[in-house]
């Protein structure tokens, strides 16, 4: 069990919450400011990765189990593609967000952007954390002192 320096651990605990809030801001404020699903997904994943680096893989897997991460990888694509299927069932083109609010097409667009970006964010978070788990889960060849 790695026990990193006290300052690192305290600062990480302070940072993780802030990073998650910032990721949510980037995710849901993407229509108004730079950012969107891709960036938010990466930032969200960073929150878990930094926790994993400082406290160890076992701890972060208790917070965010691998099976949820793997489900998220597929869930995001399903949300995105499913949005298109729903708009098709409502009688519009595939991924035509006007379908969600026929009287106010721009409102429908807002809903569509929000849902689709959410799907992107879920997949990107899942993939980034899954790749980190896959890399960090293998036995390291170098001990901490060799760096």
């Amino acid at each position, binding site marked *: 069990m790695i026990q990193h320096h006290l300052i690192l651990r305290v600062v990480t605990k302070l940072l993780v919450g802030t990073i998650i809030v910032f990721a949510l801001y980037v995710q849901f404020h*993407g229509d108004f400011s730079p950012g969107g699903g891709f960036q938010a997904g990466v930032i969200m994943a960073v929150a878990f990765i930094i926790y994993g680096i400082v406290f160890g893989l076992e701890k972060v897997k208790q917070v965010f189990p691998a099976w949820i991460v*793997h489900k998220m990888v*597929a869930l995001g*694509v399903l949300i995105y593609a499913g949005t298109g299927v729903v708009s098709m069932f409502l009688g519009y083109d595939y991924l035509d967000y006007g379908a969600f609010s026929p009287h106010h097409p721009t409102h429908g667009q807002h809903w569509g952007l929000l849902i689709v970006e959410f799907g992107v964010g879920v997949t990107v978070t899942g993939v980034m954390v899954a790749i980190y788990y896959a890399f960090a889960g293998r036995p390291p060849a*170098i001990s901490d002192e060799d760096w």
Partner: protein
Amino acid sequence: MIELFVNFVLFTMLVLTALAIVRIDRLFAVVMLSGVFSLLSALLFVTLDAVDVAFTEAAVGAGISTVLMLSTIALTKPVQKKPRHNALVPLIVVGVTGATLIYGTLDMPAFGAKDTPAQNHVAALYLERTPTDIDVPNAVTGILASYRGFDTLGETGVVFTAGIGVLLLLSGLARRREEEGEEQ
């Protein structure tokens, strides 16, 4: 004037970082420098007003890839192997490829030019119609998710496929080793 100066400084630092990456043998320093390289590129994107791209470059290039490269080094060795072959052939290959690339840039529009093909095609139409069609202040999000919704679905599919590929490659091996260990 000040913009030219900023671009000049940033490009100089990019080249210096790249040269340092080539020179250094310790892979830990190389990974850190590649993070610096990504941050400098992100700054360049900011000067080009491509804030969304800069954001992605800073988060992915400087954040995630640095962590992944460090994890990779932890699985291998922290110092680069001494080359066993003559450096002449690789040098020629790199030289020819570099010359070809530079030759290719001769036909490209000037740095930051506004009359590039990318600007003249549908971009103006998107910028003009985003306020009435989609009504969001950030036109990039509108283009990305609505006008180009199919492309972004494809991109999400690429991220999905990449993730599945890495998972199959790495976790499959771990499980096979576990099973072999149990048999022994």
